[in-house]
């Protein structure tokens, strides 16, 4: 089992309290997966030249200001850093490729969790409630968020194996299920020069979809291609800067429930994590059909 949650705020009021709405959803799903958790938060996009890099360090006392000072000196540019314990967001103008190269040379112990104009990923090993509290999920403001509570069944429990997974910029995937052919997908992508960071099956799905989008597919088309290539059981919940997308495999062995109102779209593995959302009694609550692609725009 794993738990997935997603919330797309259609109203300004819900955007202002996105963290307050999505955090109890995530915490409720801790019973489906208590070993690690994560959240991808999407804010209103930064200007085209700016990017937000989400960073993770194993050491909770890591000196993020020193990293920022080093970054600015080495790259002769300005940046700001917003840090909480072993997580930080560095806002700067450098593109993702050069930034990642600099990070690998200078601070190989720091892991790049996400890059983009809108996305910021938080994830770590530990109980979902503890992770939500440490990173102050309930204070977050944004347009949409997807989260995951993991019960590892196919690869190690580690911060890197926690979801959400990301590839490219402003794209992430959370997954409940298991793929049976991740290694053949991985070999195919590696032959195209795509590098992997873990042996996790979800990473194979995530990088496959991002590769298709880089080749020009929309996310929906990429999912249709993936449905023919990826074998296994899955409920995939994905997000880009301007949408949240859900799909289940043909057998729909992994649960999902959707609740829609004029103000929001909420997705979860189980209804009980939606039960306390505002006006839920009047929401349109339904189970997504197998293989059907559900896409909601910001």
């Amino acid at each position, binding site marked *: 089992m794993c738990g997935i949650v997603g919330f797309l705020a259609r109203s300004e009021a819900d955007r202002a309290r996105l963290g307050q709405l999505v955090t109890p959803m995530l915490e409720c799903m801790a019973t489906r997966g208590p070993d690690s958790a994560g959240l991808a938060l999407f804010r209103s996009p930064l200007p085209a030249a700016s990017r937000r890099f989400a960073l993770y360090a194993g050491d909770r006392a890591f000196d993020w200001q020193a990293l920022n000072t080093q970054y600015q000196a080495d790259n002769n540019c300005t940046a700001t850093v917003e840090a909480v314990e072993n997580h930080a967001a560095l806002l700067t103008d450098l593109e993702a490729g050069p930034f990642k190269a600099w990070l690998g040379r200078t601070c190989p112990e720091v892991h790049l969790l996400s890059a983009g104009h809108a996305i910021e990923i938080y994830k770590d090993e530990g109980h979902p409630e503890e992770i939500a509290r440490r990173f102050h999920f309930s204070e977050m403001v944004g347009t949409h968020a997807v989260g995951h509570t993991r019960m590892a069944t196919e690869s190690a429990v580690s911060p890197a194996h926690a979801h959400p997974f990301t590839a490219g910029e402003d794209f992430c995937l959370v997954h409940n299920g298991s793929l049976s052919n991740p290694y053949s997908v991985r070999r195919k992508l590696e032959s195209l020069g795509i590098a992997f960071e873990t042996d996790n099956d979800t990473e194979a799905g995530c990088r496959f979809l991002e590769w298709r989008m880089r080749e020009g597919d929309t996310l929906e088309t990429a999912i249709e291609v993936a449905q023919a290539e990826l074998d296994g059981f899955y409920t995939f919940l994905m997000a880009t800067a301007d949408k949240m997308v859900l799909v289940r495999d043909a057998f*729909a062995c992994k649960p999902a429930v959707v609740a829609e109102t004029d103000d929001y779209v909420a997705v979860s593995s189980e*209804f*009980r994590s939606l*039960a306390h959302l505002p006006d839920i009694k009047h929401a349109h609550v339904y*189970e997504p059909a197998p293989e059907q692609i559900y896409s909601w725009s910001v």
Partner: protein
Amino acid sequence: MVSLKQLDLTDLSVRQVNEYLHGELLEERPAGVEILNPDGLHSIAAGLDTKVNVDILGHAGYFIAGMNQQARVTIHGNVGWSVAENMMSGVVRVKGHASECAGASGHGGLLVIEGDASSRCGISLKGTEIVVGGSVGHFSAFMAQAGTLVVCGDAGPNLGDSLYEATIYVRGSIHSFGADAQEEEMQADDFEKVTDLLSRAEMNYDAREFKRVSSARSLYHWNADAHQEY
């Protein structure tokens, strides 16, 4: 005698509610029980074995009214996976939609789902009668051995795959049959059975609109000449 007992799941745990239904209820003998704020919680009203009306007021989670005997349980909302799983007798009615495996392995009683039921409705059915007001998802009545599934809407892919002696009646379209399931002509006793079930389920349809689906029984015996081509 208590006229109506109300149990609120914002104050009580599911375990406390079920302990009341299995214990104190038998002493108090209320006219009925209302369970408030189910909020998607699992296993509410599971394992009941007494004649009592239980109303669950809202959406509920997995295994609601599982193993039911004698009780009449009504859920005023949607339910998650495996509602009325392994039911023995009594009536379970879902006013909204049901998720997967509704009525799985049920031996007896009546399960009514007023909305849609998702995939694998009536999987491994052993005698329960299920009436679905809406449509059912893929692999419904998979390996169903005895009992009846009445679908007032449409049936999804692979209906009745590896069916034994259960019978399926479908009013709407059938996406596809599973292995060994086939449509057969409705007989007088089929019309009688469907009319009776629709009446007990309080569904206002004419039995003449329904198709009968049952097993071709070609999977019952090993056929060495089939070369695994079933």
